[in-house]
């Protein structure tokens, strides 16, 4: 009796676990299939967009009518965006800088720049035509290689990523791993989709970069233009920090050295109580200050805080105009820019944070200012009245001024800035100051934190 009972219970438990296991297995299979389908969609779409990109590039080259040219060049840029999006979804072992991604971004970027050029009545130079042709030349083998991977997917049942190395390989008995071979760029037949793409990446890496003007033309951060000359020592930097802290309400501070930073605006990093500061190696100026002290209940309005910001700028020796504010609750963030001879120079920006409990400066970011500030010479300009006449009818101008703005790719444009209303919306319109051509439009949105430009 007892024995029968136990056998029965065990059999029932076994059957239940078997059923449960099968159900889990089936569910896992379904999930795997969903993921697999998604990967296939991404890869197929990638190959298809690459193919269309290649065709549109060829058409964009041959076409002579400028309207058609704009059409094909725009298609090149949208197809390259789409291909990049698909490419970013294909399974990978790790993420790094991708030359294939860079190539796609740059060809789309270049085509967009050319399309805009033609759209605004310009023409394409022989040199630009050659660059476009070179890009096409480079794209053809990329397209072939991806289609080859697609074919092998069907015939050889390629995996998405390389399997982890086996114990034998780890001990050094196996042949060269595909990933290593991919890094060398050697033509070992890839064992997975990813290693095939990695080989493609390595082959693109060897080719010289394109030279053209556009948003993503170069990824090298230019040398900072606004830093004073001469390297400073750590002791000098500490003196700069002490002086700065004295001016923002921490007299006789003893900042502690907390490390160095590298790069364009590299410098000495300091810590004092809950504040972090950075002084540039070159020129010895404060590029960053952030005080994380706890802030007591607010006593100041935003207007009062903006006066405090102006005072702080004066104390620190900056002559800048406040342009916008953003309310973060216990502190307000202000942007201040250089205003010279009535021209607002937006790239030369300093950001300040004012605590609303006592008006103390709790944040300063001068990195944009030191990166971009330099003396500029302005070309001849049309008058304000002439510029106003270029605006669309019924655009009600609230204010107009001269400004230097940044367009894509760190290009500066000398322009007229018009703030005004149209159909219940408010906009900032920027017209090129020399030609009157429309350069940029920004829509003004009022968010709970302040105005936002979209």
């Amino acid at each position, binding site marked *: 009796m007892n024995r029968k009972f136990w056998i029965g219970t065990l059999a029932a438990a076994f059957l239940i676990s078997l059923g449960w296991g099968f159900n889990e297995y089936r569910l896992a299979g379904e999930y795997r299939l969903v993921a697999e389908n998604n990967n296939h969609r991404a890869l197929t779409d990638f190959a298809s967009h690459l193919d269309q990109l290649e065709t549109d590039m060829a058409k964009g080259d041959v076409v002579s009518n400028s309207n058609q040219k704009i059409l094909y060049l725009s298609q090149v840029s949208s197809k390259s965006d789409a291909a990049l*999006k698909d490419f*970013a979804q294909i399974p990978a072992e790790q993420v790094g800088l991708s030359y294939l991604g860079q190539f796609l971004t740059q060809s789309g970027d270049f085509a967009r720049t050319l399309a805009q050029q033609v759209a605004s009545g310009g023409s394409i130079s022989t040199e630009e035509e050659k660059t476009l042709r070179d890009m096409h030349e480079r794209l053809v083998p990329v397209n072939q290689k991806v289609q080859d991977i697609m074919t092998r997917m069907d015939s050889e049942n390629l995996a998405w990523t390389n399997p982890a190395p086996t114990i034998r390989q780890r001990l050094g008995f196996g042949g060269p791993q595909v990933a290593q071979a991919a890094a060398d760029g050697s033509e070992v037949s890839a064992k997975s989709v990813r290693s095939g793409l990695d080989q493609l990446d390595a082959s693109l890496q060897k080719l010289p970069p394109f030279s053209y003007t556009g948003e993503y033309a170069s990824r090298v951060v230019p040398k900072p233009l606004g830093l004073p000359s001469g390297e400073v020592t750590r002791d000098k930097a500490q003196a700069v920090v002490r002086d700065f802290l004295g001016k923002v309400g921490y007299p006789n501070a003893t900042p502690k050295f907390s490390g160095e930073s590298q790069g364009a605006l590299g410098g000495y990093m300091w810590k004092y109580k809950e504040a972090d500061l950075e002084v540039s190696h070159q020129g010895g100026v404060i590029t960053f200050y952030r005080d994380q002290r706890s802030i007591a209940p607010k006593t100041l309005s935003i207007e009062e805080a903006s006066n405090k910001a102006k005072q702080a700028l004066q104390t620190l020796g900056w002559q800048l105009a406040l342009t916008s504010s953003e309310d973060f609750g216990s502190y307000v963030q202000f942007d201040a820019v250089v205003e010279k001879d009535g021209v607002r120079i937006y790239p030369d920006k300093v950001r300040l944070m004012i605590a609303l409990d006592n008006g103390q400066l709790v944040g300063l970011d001068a990195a944009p200012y030191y990166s971009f500030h330099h003396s500029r010479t302005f070309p001849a300009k049309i008058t304000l009245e002439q510029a106003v006449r270029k605006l669309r009818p019924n655009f009600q101008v609230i204010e107009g001024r001269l400004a230097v703005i940044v367009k894509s790719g760190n290009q500066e444009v000398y322009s007229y800035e018009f703030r005004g209303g149209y159909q219940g919306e408010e906009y900032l319109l920027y017209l090129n100051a020399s030609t009157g051509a429309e350069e940029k439009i920004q829509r003004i949105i009022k968010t709970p934190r302040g105005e936002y430009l979209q």
Partner: protein
Amino acid sequence: MKIRVKSWGSILAIGLIISIALSGIAYAALGDRLLGKGSKGPEVTELQKKMAQLGYGVGTIDGKFGSTTEAAIKRFQKDHGLRVDGLAGTQTIKELKRLTAQSTNASGKAVGYKNIDTNLLARCVNAEARGEPYTGQVAVAAVILNRIGDPAFPKTVADIIYQPQAFSSVNDGQINLPPSASALRAAQEAVSGSDPSGGAVFFFNPAKTKNKYIWSRPQIKQIGNHMFTK
């Protein structure tokens, strides 16, 4: 007779209290009354929803003002320069309503929250840099935005965050945790242009990473436990 009057009076008083309390429950709108520990009702639910929207975790949204809600209110008050008392009074509710309102265009028409990317960015910051100094959180958000500006990466916040193997928090599902108030603020600050990372496109924890590729990148600076690199 005297006793009768007294009991009538007390019945009236009780009736009045009950009817006020009932009307409070039936027609309550957030801001009509002071809410504190022990308060219940639909306006507490509304309060909790708004708190959660701003990243102040209130636990389950159950319409009960408990100690979690009180702690969240205190943190909200601290961050927004209000008197820290843990009670949702006029000032606190006004600020809460203002911050959770939609954005408007110049003529006052609501045009949505305008923070679609900021929210995902904040989730990533929350998952990747929880417990890091605030500046380090802004820097993590800035890294994602710097990738948009770099030709070698995809061009939208979602494409970058969900790129396979790009962020460990996507692999282990931490990306789906609701973002904290500090992560939301850090994301907001990065979106409005701050970059304490100095133009970095990668970051890693030197104590936990052996990946050769990431160690080979030119280092910019260390903030908290994260090394930021080109």
